[in-house]
């Protein structure tokens, strides 16, 4: 692209930014008060925190599809195949490895707390899964966990479990009349079950996005 074309693109994008700003400045307030609607229905949602109620009850369909998208992304990565490693060799580091081994159980504990806390305060399956995934990345970088060149059967089952549990609960709702409609009395327990499945599967999937790849060569013999 020559310089004039680049300048033209930059100018057009600046015009777009100004147009967006102008549109947002003039935008009237939303005609529907969604926060009031959420607050009004919170009592029948099965949880006490509005964001969790929206994620897993009122707009559960989006979350269900999102979990599917994540699984497809990981499948795509695995299908793209392992590539030669370009990373420079890491020397084995006993301190880092020991620290990672110490921190990983604590991170699992924090993930469990976040999962439990999601029912009534900020937290939930996604935050818990992010902490689990961080533990996975840490263990990979420090050495104890190896890359997934070929995930085994147990790992594949765990990856799919969240989506399968969520789908099963969604289909159970068909007996009530609509997909993803939880029975009132069971809503809290069903949401917790779905969130528990999602935490494990999403944590593994997010970690897998980093772990699916070639092995990092080590500088020397592992201790």
């Amino acid at each position, binding site marked *: 692209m020559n310089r004039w074309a680049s300048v033209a693109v930059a100018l057009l994008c600046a015009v777009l930014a100004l147009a967006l*700003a102008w549109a*947002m*400045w003039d935008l009237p307030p939303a005609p529907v008060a969604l926060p009031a609607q959420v607050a009004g229905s919170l009592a029948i949602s099965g949880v006490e925190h509005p964001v969790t109620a*929206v994620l897993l009850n009122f707009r559960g369909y989006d979350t269900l599809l*999102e979990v599917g998208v994540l699984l497809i992304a990981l499948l795509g*990565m695995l299908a*793209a195949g392992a590539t030669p490693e370009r990373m420079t060799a890491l020397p084995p580091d006993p301190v880092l490895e020991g620290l990672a081994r110490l921190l990983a159980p604590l991170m699992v504990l924090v993930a469990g707390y976040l999962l439990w806390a999601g029912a009534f305060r900020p937290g939930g399956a996604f935050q818990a899964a992010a902490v689990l995934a961080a533990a996975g990345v840490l263990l990979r970088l420090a050495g104890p966990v190896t890359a997934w060149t070929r995930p085994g059967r147990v790992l594949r089952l765990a990856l799919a479990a969240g989506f399968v549990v969520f789908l099963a609960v969604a289909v159970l709702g068909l007996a009530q009349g609509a997909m993803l409609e939880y029975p009132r009395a069971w809503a809290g327990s069903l949401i917790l079950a779905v969130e528990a499945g999602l935490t494990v599967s999403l944590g593994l999937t997010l970690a897998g996005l980093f772990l*699916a790849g070639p092995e990092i060569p080590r500088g020397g013999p592992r201790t």
Partner: protein
Amino acid sequence: MSLGLFYALVGGGLFALGLAGLILQPRLLGKILAFNILGSGAFLVLVGLAQRGGTPDPVPQAMVLTGIVVAVAATALALALTRRLADLSGAAVLPEDDARAPANPRGPDGD
């Protein structure tokens, strides 16, 4: 101007910045980064516009939470495909961009 509107305006700016980067960056890694900035701008617009009144709206917040996770997954897939392309073709650029991709990484179009 409320804080929510300020966030939305910043989000609009990030969106335009990301779009420019997506078009102008010759290398795929730059395009992926630009696409993430574009997406973050869209998230900021969604969350910011919804809380112009001062109270946060849980519906867009839940949607953005979903969106962030999808964006991470899409970025990882894009990086894996880019790496595969780089292994097969020797360069992380699209074939139609080959002609204008500078040989050195800090070339005239690398801005």
